[in-house]
């Protein structure tokens, strides 16, 4: 299309006017417009794909490609969203919009032939306008909503005769614990299991399924389980824990004739109300610190501006650990002030400072040499290899009752004050039995304990040589505890089952005989009462020896001297230990001490995960920042947490609650969390039910068997007095709107049948994660798009028809005119651009 504007006589206009005209000329220059589109193409390609090229001809495998995201480079540090909201991009868009406006107005006549172009250009302008509205106001985040919380209410009689009411809440999630009260009035709760699909066996709703939560209650020395069913408070019942091996758990209703064994303890299930949503960090970075004074519950957020997302920033290499094989971390100091933001910040005037950022790190504890002045604290790192299994490495701490042993007590590290103590560890633990009445004294090494081998035989006590017949006394060792921590030290104990002609009892035989006592009543688990012997016809002593350890590493008495005592063979073998030298101990097993520090010191720092080992899907999950309180020396690495909970009782599975404490220069202690900024939802949201639907054959643990996830939500106005709304369902592809925000099904709580160490199994479905966001301006965007489509259809397919009609009209007129003029009309085939 050629320019339709007339050339402008330069002399006719003033200078400012000439500039305006020159700008207008530029904006309506087609070449300029094309270059803008090309620039947009290049800009988006760089932002989206970065630098990418194949290194190998096999282009269909990822490892043939070199890929580098330019926008993530240090200095740029942009998410996709940020790259496409950066000023060069918005400037380009505005220029394109202006160019379209000026060109259309100046150069495209508003005639039927050009309606299409007008519509396309108008539509795109509407789209750009709608997008400025949309992206200018966009908020998007996510929020977890737990399904139920357990509320425990009970009365505690006070010493003065009055009664106080106690209340404690905790989320219904397997393994969740809560405790309240001190001393004898202390009550412990633990969610033992949750069954989201419990089948009702009684009542009008028999056959239906309900959400069932079983809580272990420990109160005044009693323990019982209470089962709660969401929506069926009347079906609450207690399960009693008995010593009956055949049926360790019995229903209270069958044992006691009533479903509740402890009526003064009221447990109920309630909705949990979520009030916040957390802004997505991969749109615009939304880092925030949450602070509160230690002892308070309310968090105050402080947005962190200027924190990177993709690149590590560390001021000194000493601040972190790195793998030896990893390339040394480049030093990039960071100094981001995080001041009070909210008016109700409890620490107004106290600035925190972020001085380090790690994209991908895990806390690691290493042992270092504490130096000559440090306290004696022998720590060894020991590797056990065998021909059958993979080598295992253990860390042993001599002065720690638990950490001094490994592999179930088979391996232990001890610290000797004097050489005489050494001898003890060359001996097996033994039991010495005396029956004074029959003048019998027998010493027997302990070889088998019932805790490890339930079929361990009883050791019969035979009579003294002249009449070597059975005495009717027998014992077996249930377990050996070498170092139980008690006030003021540790004690060794052997727990025995003893048969006598008179009966059967358990005896706790301490190394110190004055502590030894018998346990007759089976449910008295407590062995801390006054020592008491039920049967003094038999006297038993315990010599702990090596405490059943197969391998004892003994340090001392000389500093740094380490000896290994192996009880694998028939006689104990003793070796002097050299670092990093494997010592064969028989049966194909060898032990190697890789590290040994007599004055060891623990040091915990983030271990920087090497670049190549960072999973892209992990997002910000493994980020850590180094936070310092201004003016004070206290600095700590704080790991990222997805959501902010007020207490551990609110925390969800896979989202633990671990606030770090920072000491200010004035001595105050501040709890700090590192998370994302949050916004109020404007109303409370509760999860009534979470339903997983599956394909044929049911959910097997494979994602491919899942058909849909559905969260049944309830809303209520801000404030706990209002009533919950009727339930609404949110499922994949089917969001709901509530007061300007849209709620989407985003994530779920999958079952964990094989939990990690220290966790309990979970049937899942205890919470949902909802996406939350607004969508201002989408309708304007959509309108623009539709107008543009109409324009395209018009320009490509209607315009030629309009032209043909016009042509036909002209030709018909010409023919008529020619006829009138008596001339031969000649229809020419002609086209127009």
């Amino acid at each position, binding site marked *: 299309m050629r320019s339709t504007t007339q050339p402008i006589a330069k002399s006719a206009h003033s200078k400012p006017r000439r500039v305006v005209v020159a700008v207008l000329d530029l904006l309506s220059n087609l070449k300029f417009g094309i270059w803008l589109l090309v620039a947009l193409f290049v800009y988006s390609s760089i932002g*989206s794909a970065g630098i990418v090229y194949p290194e190998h001809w096999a282009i269909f*495998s990822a*490892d043939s490609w070199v890929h580098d995201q330019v926008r993530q480079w240090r200095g740029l540090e942009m998410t996709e969203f940020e790259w496409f909201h950066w000023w060069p991009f918005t400037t380009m868009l505005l220029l394109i919009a202006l160019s379209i406006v000026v060109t259309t107005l100046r150069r495209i006549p508003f005639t039927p032939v050009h309606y299409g172009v007008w519509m396309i250009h108008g539509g795109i302008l509407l789209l750009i306008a709608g997008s400025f509205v949309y992206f200018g106001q966009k908020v998007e985040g996510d929020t977890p909503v737990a399904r139920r919380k357990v509320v425990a209410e009970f009365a505690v009689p006070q010493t003065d005769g009055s009664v106080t009411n106690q209340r404690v809440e905790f989320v219904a999630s397997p393994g969740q614990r809560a405790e309240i009260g001190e001393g004898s009035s202390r009550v412990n709760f633990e969610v033992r299991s949750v069954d989201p699909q419990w089948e009702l066996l009684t009542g009008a709703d028999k056959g239906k399924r309900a959400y069932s939560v079983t809580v272990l209650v420990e109160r005044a020395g009693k323990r019982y389980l209470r089962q709660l069913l969401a929506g069926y408070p009347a079906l609450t019942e207690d399960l009693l824990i008995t010593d009956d091996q055949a049926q360790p758990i019995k229903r209270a209703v069958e044992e006691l004739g009533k479903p509740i064994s402890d009526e003064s303890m009221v447990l109920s299930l309630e909705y949990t109300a979520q009030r916040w949503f957390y802004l997505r960090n991969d749109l615009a970075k939304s880092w925030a610190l949450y602070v509160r004074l230690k002892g308070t519950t309310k968090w105050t957020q402080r947005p962190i501006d200027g924190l990177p997302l993709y690149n590590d920033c560390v001021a000194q290499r000493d601040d972190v650990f790195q793998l030896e094989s990893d390339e040394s971390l480049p030093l990039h100091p960071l100094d981001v002030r995080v001041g009070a933001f909210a008016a109700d910040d409890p620490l107004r005037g106290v600035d925190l400072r972020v001085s380090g950022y790690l994209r991908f790190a895990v806390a690691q504890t290493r042992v270092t040499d504490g130096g000559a002045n440090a306290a004696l604290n022998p720590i060894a790192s020991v590797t056990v290899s065998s021909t059958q299994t993979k080598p295992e490495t253990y860390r042993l701490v001599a002065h720690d009752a638990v950490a001094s042993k490994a592999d179930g007590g088979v391996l232990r590290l001890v610290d000797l004050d004097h050489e005489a103590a050494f001898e003890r560890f060359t001996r097996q633990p033994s039991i010495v039995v005396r029956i004074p009445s029959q003048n019998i004294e027998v010493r027997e090494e302990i070889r088998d304990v019932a805790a490890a081998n339930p079929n361990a035989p009883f050791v019969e006590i035979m009579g003294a040589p002249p009449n070597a017949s059975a005495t009717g006394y027998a014992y077996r060792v249930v377990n050996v505890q070498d170092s139980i921590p008690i006030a003021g030290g540790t004690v060794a104990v052997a727990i025995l089952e003893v048969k006598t002609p008179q009966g059967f009892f358990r005896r706790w035989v301490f190394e110190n005989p004055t502590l030894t006592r018998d346990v007759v009543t089976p449910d008295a688990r407590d062995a801390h009462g006054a020592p008491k012997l039920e049967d003094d016809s038999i006297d038993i002593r315990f010599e702990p020896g090596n405490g059943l350890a197969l391998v004892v590493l003994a340090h001392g008495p000389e500093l740094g001297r380490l000896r290994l005592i192996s009880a694998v063979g028939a006689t104990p073998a003793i070796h002097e230990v050299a670092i990093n030298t494997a010592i064969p101990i028989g049966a194909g097993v060898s032990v190697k001490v890789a590290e040994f520090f007599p004055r060891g010191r623990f040091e915990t720092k983030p271990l920087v995960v090497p670049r190549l080992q960072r999973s892209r899907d992990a997002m910000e999950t493994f980020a850590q920042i180094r936070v310092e309180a201004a003016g004070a020396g206290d600095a700590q690495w704080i790991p990222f947490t997805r959501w902010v909970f007020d207490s551990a009782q609110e925390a969800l599975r896979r989202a633990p609650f671990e606030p770090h404490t920072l000491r200010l220069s004035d001595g105050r202690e501040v709890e700090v969390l590192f998370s994302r900024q949050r916004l109020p939802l404007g109303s409370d949201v509760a999860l009534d039910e979470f339903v997983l639907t599956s394909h044929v*054959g049911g959910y097997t643990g*494979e994602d491919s068997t*899942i058909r*849909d996830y559905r969260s049944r939500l309830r809303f209520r106005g801000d404030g706990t007095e209002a009533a919950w709304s009727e339930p609404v369902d949110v499922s994949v592809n089917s969001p709901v709107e509530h007061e300007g925000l849209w709620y989407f099904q985003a994530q779920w709580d999958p079952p964990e049948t094989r939990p990690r160490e220290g966790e309990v199994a979970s049937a899942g479905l205890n919470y949902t994660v909802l996406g939350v966001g607004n969508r201002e301006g989408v309708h304007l965007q959509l309108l623009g*798009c539709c107008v543009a*489509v109409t324009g395209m259809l018009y320009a490509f397919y209607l315009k*030629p028809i309009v032209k043909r009609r016009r042509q036909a009209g002209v030709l018909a007129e010409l023919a008529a005119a020619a006829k009138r003029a008596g001339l031969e009309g000649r229809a020419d085939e002609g086209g127009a651009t």
Partner: protein
Amino acid sequence: MMRRAWSRGPWKSLAFVLFALFARVAVADESALPFAKRVDLTPLATIAVQADGRLKCLSSFASEMMRVVSGPRAIADQDPLFTYLDMLFHPKAYREADVIFVKSAPSRVRLADALRRADPSAEMALRMESFEASGLISEEFLSQEAVLAVLEEMQVDLVRSAKVVDAIESALRVKDPRFLLSRLRIIPRGDGAMQRPWHGITTVIIAEEQASALDVPVQAREAVAAAWKQLVNGWLEGDATMVSSAATALAAELRSIDPNGYPDLRRLQWEHWYFANDHMTKTWIVYLAASILLLLGVVWKWPRARTAGTIVFALALALHTIAVLLRWYIAGRWPNSNMFEAVTTAAWFGCVAALVLEYVSRRSAMRSFFALGAAVSAMVALMAAHFLTVQLNPDINNMTPVLHDVWLYIHTNVIIFSYVLIFMASVSGALYLVHRALGGAASYARVGGAGSLILASPKGTPLEAGARAATGEVLDGVTMVLMELSFVLLWTGIIMGAIWADHSWGRPWGWDPKEVFALNTFLVFAVLVHVRLRVKDKGLWTAVLSVVGALVMLFNWIVINFVITGLHSYA
């Protein structure tokens, strides 16, 4: 004479090609054949197995599992179901055989180098050469220390090579006879509960008192166990007759447990047929024939080749249509939810569009060009589907929950339709470039694309018509017709995607790489439209930009999918 003989020739050769494609040749002397060829597993091939939330026919399931082990390669030219069972019954035989497929060529080199260093013999050099070419390696080699060290090194690189190690590990896991046995969930539930799992074969053979299979009647359990034992014994003895009769008995037994809940036999048979015939992707050969004939037809203006080409093209499209419909029938949903389906269905759309355009342009000089572009596109697409079965996995599986939406069928189909049109436009664009390189004149279609068809002269002849139209003009016109269509469809498809994303992900536009490159493709075409207004050599610019547009589209399909994954990674 020659001409006439030839004109009948295509039919004969075509019939032969089709026969060779989809028929199995019967062999006379049975006893001389190896066990693998003598044993008849057809009855077993069409029993149902429950896997990944679907009821599949056993042969398609076996081919899926064997693809995890050996990728696109067939082991010893055996049927996958045979290999599955043989691997289960003779695991040792597969330990030393080269059966594990390593997809990535760079990784093959690393592994082969490690083995060559460990064993510099000529024999090893030979085997490694074959490994680098075929990608197949034995479990024996993979468990050598030198290889384990390399694998560990590769596993550390999560960004690039860890996936290769993962694939090798899954191959080893699947190859394990315990795994193969545990996945044979072929015993229907006796109580007909569809939301509960079917039973594995172990529940009837190992423990008769196994409570989990109690819903199956005792006689049925015993009969299944007996048939299975016979199958195993026959297999171990190499007795093909015994195996065949056991297979028949087992299949009949399994069908009788829950006749109402059991999948339709006809569907299972078609599924078996579809998988046994490479998902009908060999149709690419017919498209190749059509492309050659049409090219001869349009380049040398040879009317008979043109007619023959159009007929062969129609035939290829008919086969292609059967393949698409069959897959629809087997999967129970329109095939557009994974890479294999997107590529093959897109090609089908292109061919259908070409058929319509051929009709519209039947009297113009543009005729046959649309069919040619579509035939080339479909040939490329079906070749990719046929040869790159690891990248374009042909298995029929359940869709992730997010794909269950009506917009999947609208958005995806519109987008892939526009993509195939872009590819077709690049074919005519490339032809234009060849034409120009060979000295063709700098001509172009004066009224753009559809305009040149619509703006016919009063006499009814389209503008670009007959012998008078220059080749360049026609090619440019074809490119423009396709470009205009893809321009509208791509834009519409992107909007439809935005509408879907708005209620699915919570944002109509997320600057996801796939979205950005769809927009980039559109930008190339927007530049093209405007450049045409400005430059003199419109034909050349159009051809170049249509090829650039197709490259950006392919970049989106290949690089964004395999290297820069984003939210759209499942398609």
